């Protein structure tokens, strides 16, 4: 499969293996086309997880990771792409309905926007909260004091 995809997309895909697990680093221009291909032609019909990792020192600050599984092949694969702060990706909700809440969580925690998402808003934190907690520059004790004061009527949540 990897050879076939590699032939088609060329340098856009780098297939790798670490600790016996397969993943591929892909160019962000291939998203969502490649994900669609993986579901339609390679039977990766179950999107296990969508998440991100923040590397503040890099030019493209974020890694966005899709964990996919195929029931037919009994195989897992991870797709990874890099994007810069402020850039957005195409939503995968039309490909896997499961991505709906997962993308909302990535948006909530990292501030990565997904174009075409049916209802992109915060999911775990309240609407109107400032900041995205899983970014590395967000301190562990930091919080939106203004929100806490207005909505909870207390000086600070600490």
């Amino acid at each position: 499969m990897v050879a076939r995809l590699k032939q088609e997309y060329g340098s856009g895909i780098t297939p790798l293996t670490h600790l016996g697990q397969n993943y591929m680093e892909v160019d962000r221009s291939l998203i969502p086309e490649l994900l669609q291909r993986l579901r339609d032609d390679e039977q990766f019909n179950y999107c296990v997880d969508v998440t991100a990792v923040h590397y503040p020192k890099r030019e493209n600050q974020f890694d966005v990771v899709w964990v996919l599984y195929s029931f037919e092949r009994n195989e897992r694969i991870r797709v990874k792409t890099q994007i810069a702060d402020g850039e957005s990706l195409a939503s995968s909700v039309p490909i896997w309905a499961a991505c709906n809440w997962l993308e909302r969580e990535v948006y909530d925690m990292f501030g990565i926007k997904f174009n075409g998402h049916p209802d992109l808003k915060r999911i775990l934190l309240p609407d109107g909260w400032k900041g995205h907690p899983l970014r590395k520059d967000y301190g562990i004790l930091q919080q939106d004091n203004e929100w806490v004061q207005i909505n909870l009527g207390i000086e600070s949540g600490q």
Partner: protein
Amino acid sequence: MTDPNTLSPLDLDTLDKTYLDANELVINMGPQHPATHGVLRVILRLDGEKVLGLECVIGYLHRGVEKIAENRTYTMFNPYVDRMDYVAAVSNALGYCEAVEKLLSVEAPPRAQYIRVILTELNRIASHQLWLGTHALDIGAITPLFYTFRDREEILKIFEKYCGARLTTHAFRIGGLQYEAYDGFEKDVKAFCTFVKPKIDEYEELLTTNRIWLERTKGVGVISGKDCIALGVTGPVLRASGVKWDIRKAQPYANYKNFDFEIPTGQNGDTYDRYIVRMIEMRQSLRIIEQAVEGIPEGPIMAKVPKVMKPPVGEVYHSIEAPKGELGYFIVSDGSTQPYRVRVRPPSFINLQALDLMCRGQLVADVIAVIGTLDIVLGEVDR
């Protein structure tokens, strides 16, 4: 049936317009509600008694577990995972410890693996018992709650004797176990198996052919296997919809490949089938425990792991079959003592997403039944 891919979000902006024609009604349920199993808020859009759509509002229990992980060492984070799915803490710990072991390229010794499997399966039974008690209570059957809590106590006693804690056990360590099985552990586990088998029959006697139970569960909250896969729903919910998939069989972890057990499946994907699947799962867990307790090998319980853990740079995704579904950990290491990123793939969070689809067209009272049958734990949904 509605296609999950085209399911429109509950459009709250149009509500004041439709509200005026008096056919549609918006009702808020929760977050403080006895049948939402925690602090789940559901906004229901109703036409009379019929549910037109609903939206879940979650996050009330958000503690930032993933952020905490980035500021703790690998060992220090271990007790935190117990606090996500607090009714199946042992499963959480198993997933986390195995994921870090994979990063470190170590494997727990056989004796530790056996004890791990026994405790995890005991916890699966405890989790299903709690589910059955509360789910039946929601639907109106009070007795099963007393029965299941009485019997679950026996499991918690074994946990308490083993590690001193009953719920948030912190039973496992990265690389194996901290505690050797106490004297009489095997005897206690065997005694529990003989004790609980007739009790499971007792629960079934109360419910399986009970007419009220059948009326409240048959054909309620139906979801097809195809929709389950599209929505990422796993665990007993997926199996009750006819998909025979269990990570213990599909991609065995720990030493599950040594044991003989069946994966139960249903056909209709309704609340009743999910009940039956979980009942059989409890019996299958007992089967695993009985095989494991007979075969506990002698030997060390801890693999050689460094006191200061610094896994090599890299990332790993490891998942296990928790009582609720696929529980995954995605851990990125930068070579330091603290994980660079820990992502938890919680089964409850993703299963809850199917609530909207499963409730559309049903009655308000069935929403309670469907929340119960999904077996969510809000500590895990919100993390």
